[in-house]
């Protein structure tokens, strides 16, 4: 075979690229990703897409059925609610609110969790074991109970319920980070850096953290689906977002009032919520199997 190339061109995909290639092979996961991107777009560009102001009340247009119903109209594709507000706009704003808040919560929990996890992983003895026990107890308490305590102390409201969710999300990041740090600390590349005289902080930031990226993203998708479900559940129970707000859970609880005469008030916000969580979970699953496949090779 003739050699035209001076150097044998052998492309080694980076680990990240490899994961992406593996992920791409999974069509369902790609579908989920497209859906997820769609939700992100909605979250960002919601005011441009939504046909109406979500709180605009039209007293003449109460409980208009969706457009596919015989009595429905074109103006309100998803129909209207009991106050004559456009459901499509409310659902879009609801997606923005639920999804946006959940992402913020996950990012916040991730930062705090990784920080604490790093401390726990790098240290030994009392400090580490104290942290462990506290987190275990927090993790054993249902989110809803934490939310009830916080709300009893601070009063109902979206922000107060958010604290409860963050508190419930943090432990898994801490555990993940700590276990990862523990296992990496004994590896040779870390040892090499340590022998070079790197401090603990440098060790974590320069050597360990870069390798954690993918696991963290995976963990974050998991946390995101929990967070969406929690935000909407608290909204549904009227413990989080309050009545006129268009948060999806709150929308559902407002929809119950007219559930029997206007079932689309329940079906559509619930459907959006379901789609959102499904797409997050599918992407999470896809990532996990892609990662596993990469490690197997």
């Amino acid at each position, binding site marked *: 075979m003739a050699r035209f190339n001076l150097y044998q061109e052998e492309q080694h995909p980076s680990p990240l690229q490899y994961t992406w290639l593996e992920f791409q092979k999974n069509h369902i996961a790609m579908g989920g990703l497209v859906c997820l991107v769609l939700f992100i777009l909605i979250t960002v560009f919601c005011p441009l897409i939504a046909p109406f102001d979500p709180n605009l009340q039209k007293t003449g247009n109460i409980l208009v059925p969706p457009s596919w119903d015989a009595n429905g109209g074109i103006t309100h594709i998803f129909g209207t609610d009991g106050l004559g507000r456009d459901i499509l706009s409310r659902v879009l704003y609801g997606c923005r609110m639920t999804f946006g808040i959940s992402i913020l919560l996950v990012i916040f929990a991730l930062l705090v969790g990784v920080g604490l996890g790093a401390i726990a992983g790098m240290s030994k003895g009392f400090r580490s074991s104290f942290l462990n026990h506290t987190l275990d*107890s927090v993790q*054993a308490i249902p989110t809803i*109970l934490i939310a*009830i305590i916080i709300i009893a*102390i601070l009063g109902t409201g979206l922000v107060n319920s958010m604290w409860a969710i963050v508190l419930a999300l943090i432990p898994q990041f801490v*555990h993940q980070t700590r276990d990862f740090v523990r296992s990496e600390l004994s590896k040779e590349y870390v040892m090499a850096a340590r022998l070079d005289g790197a401090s603990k902080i440098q060790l974590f930031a320069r050597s360990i953290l870069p390798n954690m990226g993918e696991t963290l993203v995976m*963990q974050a998708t998991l946390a995101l689906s929990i967070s969406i479900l929690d935000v*909407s559940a608290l909204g549904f*129970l009227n413990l989080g977002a309050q009545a006129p707000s268009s948060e999806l859970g709150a929308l559902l609880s407002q929809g119950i009032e007219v559930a029997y005469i206007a079932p689309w008030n329940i079906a559509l916000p619930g459907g959006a919520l379901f789609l959102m969580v499904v797409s997050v979970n599918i992407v999470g699953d896809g990532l996990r199997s892609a990662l596993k496949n990469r490690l197997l090779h």
Partner: protein
Amino acid sequence: MLNILLRYTNLIIITLFILSLLSFALAYLFPGDPIEIMTGLKLEELQKLQNQSVNIGYDPEGGVLSQYGHYMSELFSGNWGVSFSSGQPLYEEIMQSLPASIELSAYALTISLILGLPLGFIAALRHHKLPDYTLLSFSVVGYSIPVFWLALILILVFSLHFGWLPLSGRLSLIFDVPNKTGFILIDILMSDIDNKHAVLLDALRHLILPTLSIAIVTTTLILRITRRSVIETLNSEFIQAAYARGLTTRQVLVRHGIRNALIPILPLLAMQFPTLLTNAMIVETIFSWPGIGSWLIQAIYQQDYSAIQAGMLAVSVFVVLFTMSIDMLLRLTDPKRKKVERGTI
């Protein structure tokens, strides 16, 4: 063995002590007077009672430490104060609603185990084949579905559209069943009412929808955990070795697979307990199930702080005792394990 027992007893006592401190602190954190919250009575009423030299169990002038002492002694004597909104003794209210929640969760968990474990095995054994994909997609759908939406849809379909099943409560209010254990089915079986059969049927009818709502979500969780664990076990070397010895798939499974796959599942299942409880509490409010979840949420709506404080303590003690006993049991059965491993679903 004794060592583990001692360690866990110790741990439980310390945790309970911390919980009691937290609960006591709540009385100071909640808006309102701490003593009013602990007793559920207004200060004027307390003053009146004191003037009639009734022992109210608290000393309004005492310091925080003596207050805590009073609080603990009242707790142990079963005097948990009364509810702000209904004026009923909290101990009795909680002892009626907590079993209702436990009952609902227990049935849901049982159904989920009966369905989830075998399905998980099937999916794992047909790994990367049609049954696996079907079950997996079913499970993604199942555990992505918001439980409150699922419950609403079940109501719309089965109660309102077809009119098959009732949508609220535990038992038709027409029937009076003496409350002994707090578990409705047991109470009915133990009671000596004349139309037992009809009452039992009515209770079952009330149970179906709430149990199903919780069970669907929990089943999918168990399915995923089982599937993953079985796949990992089947890939491990001792299974390969068993195959190499010429055993059939069935023999491999029965002799080695099932046991070794189930052991790592148990702690993961225990970790799903808070999720189960959260789902149960949400479902309770939708089906007006008179359990501790709907009771606590009502208390929040009515700003009934004395009820929240007592209810919180009861639930958290229950959760701690339950999770710690599971932990301890696991350690006793499998002493090799140092610490419960954590994992993702």
